[in-house]
């Protein structure tokens, strides 16, 4: 009978390890009086080897077997993540098994990761967009597919930042073992599990902006010139939760914090990423220009309309503005009307950008 095979393995492992003693998640087994002492929060008995084998289907036994013999990998991010997933640090084995029977789900960025109890205490895992929980979506079993699935958002736009909150919908990785589950998560959000683990262990190596900027060479060497205010604006532009799901742990330097909210993400950002550095390079060149005074003629509604347009672009809302919704300042017809009225070859309101070139 196939269902007995996993329990057979548990029974063999119990018999094999009992002499060395087992002490794991509430289960204690050790040699005593010619047999073995079996102790759990619910029971304390002395049994022979047969009695030990008979207890192979005890949740404490299968739980021990799963974590110590199947998952193993002590001190690895993989194990820590899988333990966190089922709340192993907070829940006793019977409570956990109750939860796991129906599937226990936690979120990781926009992902929902579900652990389900399977034969002989094994766990199987599923990974999908959290909005797709309970939805009928395409099923995948090979974690490598995740690399391609998450490359573009639902509108088909390339996602250069894996932790941007634009994860596409419509897929689910199912029937994964623990290693595959972590691999899937790591293909969707690379290195997040490792850095989260380091943070929990108290050894997250944060590199602040000053160190990262100093390290840059080539065309990025100039980012060191970005001043403190502009760095704040850059972090507000790129790093807040509406743009990136990592929780920013880096600051301007070890003793100068940025005021921009860090975000509430489960996993940390330990140093400015390549996208941030590339954007910072552009901001650095833009910030070299001095402000000037320009004189424009705009009606109050036109001034507000320009503000609406900036907001719509900054909030990524342009796609949502309906074609005929002329009450929206960032509506296309409204923008075209403004351009027809206020812009000519000298630019906005007939005011040249560089008046000296027109004198």
């Amino acid at each position, binding site marked *: 009978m196939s269902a007995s095979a996993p329990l057979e393995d548990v029974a063999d492992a119990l018999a094999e390890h009992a002499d060395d003693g087992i002490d794991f998640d509430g289960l204690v087994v050790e040699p005593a009086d010619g047999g073995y002492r079996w102790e759990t929060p619910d029971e304390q008995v002395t049994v022979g080897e047969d009695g030990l084998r008979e207890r192979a289907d005890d949740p404490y036994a299968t739980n021990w077997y799963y974590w110590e013999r199947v998952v193993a990998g002590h001190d690895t991010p993989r194990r820590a993540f899988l333990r966190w997933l089922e709340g192993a640090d907070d829940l006793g084995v019977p409570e956990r098994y109750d939860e796991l029977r129906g599937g226990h789900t936690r979120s990781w960025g926009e992902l929902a990761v579900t652990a389900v109890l399977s034969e002989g205490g094994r766990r199987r895992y599923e990974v999908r967009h959290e909005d797709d929980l309970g939805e009928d979506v395409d099923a995948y079993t090979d974690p490598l597919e995740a690399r391609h699935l998450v*490359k573009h958002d639902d509108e088909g736009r*390339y996602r250069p*930042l894996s932790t941007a909150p634009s994860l596409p919908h419509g897929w689910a990785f199912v029937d994964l073992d623990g290693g595959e589950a972590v691999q899937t998560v*790591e293909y969707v959000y690379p290195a997040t599990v490792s850095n989260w683990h*380091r943070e929990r262990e108290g050894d997250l*190596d944060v590199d602040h902006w000053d160190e990262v900027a100093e390290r840059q*060479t080539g065309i990025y060497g100039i980012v060191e010139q970005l001043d403190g205010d502009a760095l704040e604006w850059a972090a507000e532009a790129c790093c807040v939760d509406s743009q990136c799901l990592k929780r920013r742990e880096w600051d301007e330097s070890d003793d100068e914090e940025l005021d921009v909210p860090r975000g509430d993400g489960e996993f940390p950002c330990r140093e400015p990423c390549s996208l941030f550095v590339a954007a910072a390079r552009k901001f650095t060149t833009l910030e070299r220009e001095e402000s000037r005074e320009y004189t424009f003629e705009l009606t109050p509604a036109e001034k507000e309309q320009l503000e609406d347009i900036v907001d719509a672009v900054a909030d990524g809302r342009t796609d949502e503005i309906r074609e005929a919704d002329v009450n929206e300042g960032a509506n296309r017809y409204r923008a075209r009307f403004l351009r027809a009225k206020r812009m000519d070859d000298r630019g906005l309101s007939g005011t040249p950008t560089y008046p000296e070139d027109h004198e």
Partner: protein
Amino acid sequence: MQALVIVGHGSHLNPGSSDPAFSHADTIRASGAFDEVREAFWKEEPSFREVLRTLESEEVFVVPLFISEGYFTEQVIPRELRLSDWDPEDWDSDGTDADHVTVQAGDVDKTVHYCGPVGTHDSMSDVIVERAKSITDDPDVGEGFGLAVVGHGTERNENSAKAIHYHADRIRESGRFEEVKAVFMDEDPEVDDVTEFFEAEDVVVVPLFVADGFHTQEDIPEDMGLTDDYRTGYDVPTEVDGHRIWYSGAVGTEPLVADVILERADDAGADLADAIERVRRRTESEGAASAGD
């Protein structure tokens, strides 16, 4: 446990830039030679900074999916991987013969074997020839054919031209093609005038680039006169000035590049058993099969 990390450039703008790294990684994964295989990128994730910590293996072979030795392989990659003991001198290379160096990384307790780039490994010459075979759909291609190996040129990096010449010279010495020339995008001899450099009517043109992108899909086809507008596409071969030009696109997408990556790791002491043989068999037949499509 041993891991392989393929480090590539990646892109914030072009989603296809990481495809070759992914597909070569998949080929090597399937060979089972490494316990872990991971791709890392300068512009994508995991970054060079954070890839080593994602691995459980104690022994890591890092192979740059770059064409030439220089700024990236000598400065950026070692710096970002925190290989602080690494010194470019350790490679003892004059621009085309970097091998490997064993060092520790600053943020993880692992031994890192940092290898030279795929582009300057001898077996890259075989990949260029393989590319010529697959684009002509002729396993015996050579007789009556010229071969142009295209590089970026020296403007960006002096060694980039060295790598092109190195492989062009090796293939010429093999005697397989009637003529072999190194040509460049931004220096003489220029790819624009490619037909002027060959007597042979048929010329295979292979760009020594890692991934297809702007240069290989837009600039080079237009520069050579295969098309006025890359968006309208071009035929293979295309008739230009009395020559038939067989333009192959970036060599880095050729399946056999997986073999070069393995050769790099093998040179650095990875325990590969017969993986190289198996990958070679598989990628050579894959290349032939896709050329027949």
